């Protein structure tokens, strides 16, 4: 986003930057409105891609349900997401983990990312 006015428009609704990155196992808490009642549905899986920036940033979560791979894409800044919890980090060397689609069972596991001694903001997946 380069244009100042466009940035100003998005800043109004922008929450803070996401605290997760590609390779992390996350719980996505989604608010779902059923008639009058609101409930929270949790979708757990591995973040396999993040794209876009600012208000338009999206991320894709992949999980295996009954032997079938399920991928869901959410906007990072959506007010419909109550929270996004990082359950486990993953050490990955690529920005998009599409290779996980070709793997089944144990091969889909990711190594835990080693926490660096200096506590910096979570950067890209290049922290290998």
């Amino acid at each position: 986003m380069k244009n100042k006015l466009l940035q100003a428009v998005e800043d109004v609704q922008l929450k803070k930057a996401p605290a997760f990155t590609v390779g992390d196992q996350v719980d996505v808490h989604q608010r779902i409105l059923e008639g009058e009642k609101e409930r929270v549905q949790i979708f757990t899986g591995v973040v396999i891609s993040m794209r876009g920036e600012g208000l338009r940033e999206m991320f894709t979560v992949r999980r295996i349900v009954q032997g079938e791979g399920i991928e869901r894409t959410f906007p990072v800044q959506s007010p419909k997401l109550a929270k996004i919890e990082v359950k486990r980090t993953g050490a990955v060397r690529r920005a998009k983990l599409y290779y996980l689609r070709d793997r089944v069972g144990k091969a889909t596991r990711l190594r835990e990312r080693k926490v660096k001694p200096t506590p910096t903001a979570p950067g890209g997946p290049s922290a290998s």
Partner: protein
Amino acid sequence: MPLGMLGLKVGMTQVYDDKGNLEPVTVLQLGPNPVLLVRTMERDGYHAVQVGFGDKARKRASRAERGHVSADFSSKRKKARQEAGEQLPEKANVEPQKYIREFRLADAATLGVGAVLKAEDVFKDIPNVDVIGTSKGRGYSGVMKRWGFSGLRASHGIKKGSRQHGSTSSLASNRGSGRPKKGLKRAGQHGNARSTARNLKIVRIDAANNVVLVRGAVPGPNGGFIIVRPTNKRD
């Protein structure tokens, strides 16, 4: 035609509405627009206000453009008129304007020369607007791009004509005039023409930045000049 405003198309993005759904919006930078001239029924035969948008460097403006907006601009003709005792027109006293347009009004204008239009005043209670711009030029385009024709087949004996339009009707189709009907869709200049996007919802007005968000797309490139008016579409 009611009062509208002049401005630029900034670009498109998305914002969330109050239900949390994403809405595609175009960001428009509107105004401030100074009123340069007021047309009256007595003098001009119609009611309108002339407004400007965007400052133009004085060295880039012609003397006429500078004199139109400035009260203390000296010219021989102005001096002569003054000496003859003529009443000189009021001036807005602003920089020369890049874009100048008129908005026709049904009744006499309530704004005077020198008043400044702001988006938050003009579009305060207006839910929907029309945005007029100049569409992106696509040059001389064929019928497939310009009119969405299907073209001809890729095979079965068609050699080079896969993007042609096929038959353009018989010469007898226009009641024996010997020519096809006017307005037949053919190849030609596509885009770079005045275009109006009608009935766009105003999503948000940002008074501090002179910015208005409308739902959906707007003709023209980012940075293109646009005119916005309350919609004339009846529902």
